[in-house]
């Protein structure tokens, strides 16, 4: 059986936290450039120029793209034939987050308890860690730090089957209109349809790990992604101060659901659509 020492996991997670904070993925950078070419608002063009320049500075100088370096979401796919040795997997991942955020001069934005005693944990742990067991002997890690300017504008709606496609569109657009310019557009919109309430929310997060240039493989969902993107770009929200580039992409993931339900979750991501992916 293949063995993987937790120390290797910690080191990789630390590097990935820094990479994600400094380097905007190429697809998002190209999406911003395309938006700049088509943007109709003069102020919107100025805003997009600043956002593009910002990405270039962050990358060239190894600096955080945004000061909100987020709560660290970690998706782990653990091969069932992999033996993790030398310690606890969750602790190893959190140790990597603490190392990356400290060494990388990233902001520590996590409080240990949400309501009565909001004290900063000072190393950005714990991360939000999702673990899936899959065939194989590899460990697949995706790090997706999530800023809260946009997270606070996300939402979920428990529709009934009779609401159908029209209901889904209305539910999504209500959340987008309510969010307006607040989640730092141009946004990327992750949507989870189906499952239970919690599964829909998770699918909406997973949707954001897909490239913005890649549509859902099922044609009906691909068409819905395109239609929603067009609607969002006609709201006038634009790149924060009005315009036509309100969103770069809509990514939908779906899952089986109950005969009586149609959950729809929307995670809004700002233009800082940051990720890092490695297979160990």
């Amino acid at each position, binding site marked *: 059986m293949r063995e993987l020492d937790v120390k290797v996991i910690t080191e990789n997670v630390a590097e990935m936290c820094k990479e994600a904070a400094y380097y905007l993925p190429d697809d998002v950078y190209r999406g911003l450039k395309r938006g700049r070419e088509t943007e109709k608002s003069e102020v919107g063009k100025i805003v997009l120029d600043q956002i593009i320049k910002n990405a270039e500075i962050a990358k060239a100088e190894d600096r955080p793209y945004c000061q909100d370096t987020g709560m660290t979401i970690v998706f782990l796919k653990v091969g069932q034939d992999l033996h993790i040795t030398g310690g606890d997997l969750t602790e190893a991942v959190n140790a990597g987050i603490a190392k990356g955020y400290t060494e990388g001069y990233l902001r520590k934005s996590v409080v240990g308890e949400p309501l009565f005693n909001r004290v900063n944990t000072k190393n950005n742990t714990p991360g939000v860690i999702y673990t899936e067991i899959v065939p194989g002997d590899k460990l697949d890690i995706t790090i997706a730090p999530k800023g809260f300017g946009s997270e606070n504008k996300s939402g979920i709606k428990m529709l009934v089957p009779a609401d159908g496609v029209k209901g889904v569109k209305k539910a999504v657009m209500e959340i987008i209109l309510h969010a307006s310019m607040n989640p730092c557009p141009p946004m990327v919109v992750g949507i989870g349809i189906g499952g239970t309430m919690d599964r829909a929310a998770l699918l909406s997060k997973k949707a954001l790990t897909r490239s913005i240039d890649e549509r859902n493989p099922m044609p009906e969902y691909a068409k819905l992604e395109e239609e929603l993107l067009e609607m969002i770009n006609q709201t006038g*929200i634009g790149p924060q101060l009005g315009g036509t580039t309100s969103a770069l992409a809509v990514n939908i993931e779906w899952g089986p659901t109950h005969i009586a339900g149609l959950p729809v979750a929307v995670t809004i991501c700002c233009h800082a659509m940051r990720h890092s992916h490695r297979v160990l």
Partner: protein
Amino acid sequence: MTEALARGEKLPVDWKNQIVYYLGPTPAKPGDPIGSCGPTTSGRMDAYTPTMLDQGIKGMVGKGSRTPEVVEAMKRNGATYFAAVGGAAALIAKSVKKYTVLAYPELGPEAVAALEVVDFPAIVVIDCEGNNFYEIGQKPFRNFDINQI
């Protein structure tokens, strides 16, 4: 600070004629005055803002919408609200020359600090008469009605 005022205490900083920038920067790398420092959501401050404007603040820099209560307090005090581009944190850091913590150092990135800036990129979004560019800027490009779905 609003709690301290309610208790009748003096504030650690004189806010008269100052401009406040809402931000929580990343830690500075060695040799830099500040880390990445884009604006944070101004709406988080709305509950406290009218009281703070009455302390003499003349300008605010942040991102996102404000409540009607804040806009009223702006008109009452002749204050202006500027937007910095949300997320442009590495770019904005270039315009900050000095960062000095003045109060509440225990709050880390959320401490009250004095910033010295040159060519800081900001745009007026709500003026002291209540004109709102967030609304004005969106209108010409809005071609969507949710009731048409």
